[in-house]
């Protein structure tokens, strides 16, 4: 027993150091899969409300620009009402997807894996895997939900993969992020025979249940390197400006469970 005390007195600091670091590492590793990552932040009432208060203060600084954005959006919606789009697939989309407006309360763009916290949660019908878009384009996917907040894995995340389509020729590719610059991403899995030009536009493919088709994602910034014989990669400029993000829409797919059940039975 006495020896134990001597030992503790001599090496106590090292033992405590190892103990604390192990606790930290357990916390990090437990939260490593992106699904759990923001859990602590979002589900914690204190930090959620803290973020919300900070965001409320910030809002006053952005009121002018906010008004402009809302006016733009209003104009867009009015235009949509004005023209009579009686095409059947337009109705189909309105039927399938509903949009829940939400407010960004926390946003990061400079980390390796970036997340956004929005002020809508389970109480507003938000569930994990729902897509999030803004008036300019795709933002990300909901990964975690608490009763009044949700965390969104933005496209600026190394785990994020968004299925896209070239507007010009309908070829499908995947958009990922290389954690370097928040304005640019990478388009992967482009068939290497495809000739792509600067300025080619990419939109969502609509193959995932999270996003409607034809939401803008970005434009090609420069040419492509051949990864291998089959596929090549190109640099993409996002249409969404993640650094000024304030208003977003969560996309609810009303038939998601029905589509999913089909996939499972297959």
């Amino acid at each position, binding site marked *: 027993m006495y020896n134990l005390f001597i030992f503790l007195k001599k090496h106590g600091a090292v033992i405590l150091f190892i103990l*604390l*670091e192990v606790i*930290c590492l357990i916390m990090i590793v437990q939260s*490593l899969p992106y699904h759990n990552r923001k859990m602590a932040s979002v589900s914690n009432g204190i930090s959620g409300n803290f973020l919300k208060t900070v965001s409320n203060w910030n809002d006053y600084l952005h009121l002018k620009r906010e008004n402009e954005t809302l006016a733009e959006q209003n104009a867009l919606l009015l235009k949509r009402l004005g023209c009579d789009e009686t095409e059947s697939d337009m109705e189909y989309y309105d039927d399938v997807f509903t949009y829940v407006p939400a407010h960004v309360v926390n946003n990061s763009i400079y980390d390796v894996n970036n997340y956004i916290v929005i002020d809508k949660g389970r109480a507003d019908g938000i569930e994990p895997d729902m897509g999030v878009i803004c008036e300019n384009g795709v933002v990300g996917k909901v990964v975690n939900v608490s009763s009044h907040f949700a965390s969104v894995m933005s496209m600026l995340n190394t785990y994020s993969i968004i299925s896209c389509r070239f507007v010009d020729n309908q070829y499908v590719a995947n958009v990922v992020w290389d954690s370097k610059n928040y304005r640019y991403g990478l388009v992967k899995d482009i068939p290497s025979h495809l000739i792509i030009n600067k300025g080619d536009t990419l939109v969502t493919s609509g193959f995932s249940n999270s996003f409607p088709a034809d939401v803008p994602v970005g434009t090609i910034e420069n040419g492509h390197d051949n990864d291998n014989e089959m596929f090549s990669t190109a640099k993409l400029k996002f249409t969404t400006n993640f650094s000024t993000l304030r208003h977003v829409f969560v996309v609810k797919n009303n038939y998601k469970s029905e589509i999913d059940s089909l996939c499972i039975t297959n």
Partner: protein
Amino acid sequence: MYNKLIHNILRFILLLVLQLLVFDNLNFGSYIHLHIYVLFILLLPFDTPQWRLMIDGFLIGLAVDVFNGTPGLNAAATVFLAFMRPFIIGITTRKSDLEGKNEPSITEMGLSWFTVYGLLLILMHNLVLFWLEAFSIKLLGIIILETLLSSLVSLLTIILIIYLFKPVKK
């Protein structure tokens, strides 16, 4: 003793609020992240035992983590900083230098000593932090660049903060 405790608690809260409200929102590009809350550990008195340094580092790191949604990340880096602090003080000073000194502050130890002391510890803190954040060896180049740039800017900011709150008395 009692005053000292209140003083430290206030400093803890002030640095935490500064970090969360100001420095987490300042964007200098993807390579520069300011972590000024480590100043709390840097300024604890010389006679603080190592275990207290580490517990305090754990607490302030965890507090930052809770609000940033990165459980354990800042805590791990700050515990490492607190663990290394006595060694760094050991290699940068002689026994006779420390006589009659309370705090490793600029007023007591001088700017040049504080710069070396601060830079070494902040480099270690940032290296652990960015490496754990990226969690891979693949990004080593980026991590080292991030560490160097962030440490220099953080140290500069920390020195500015010290002069802002504690003007040098003549």
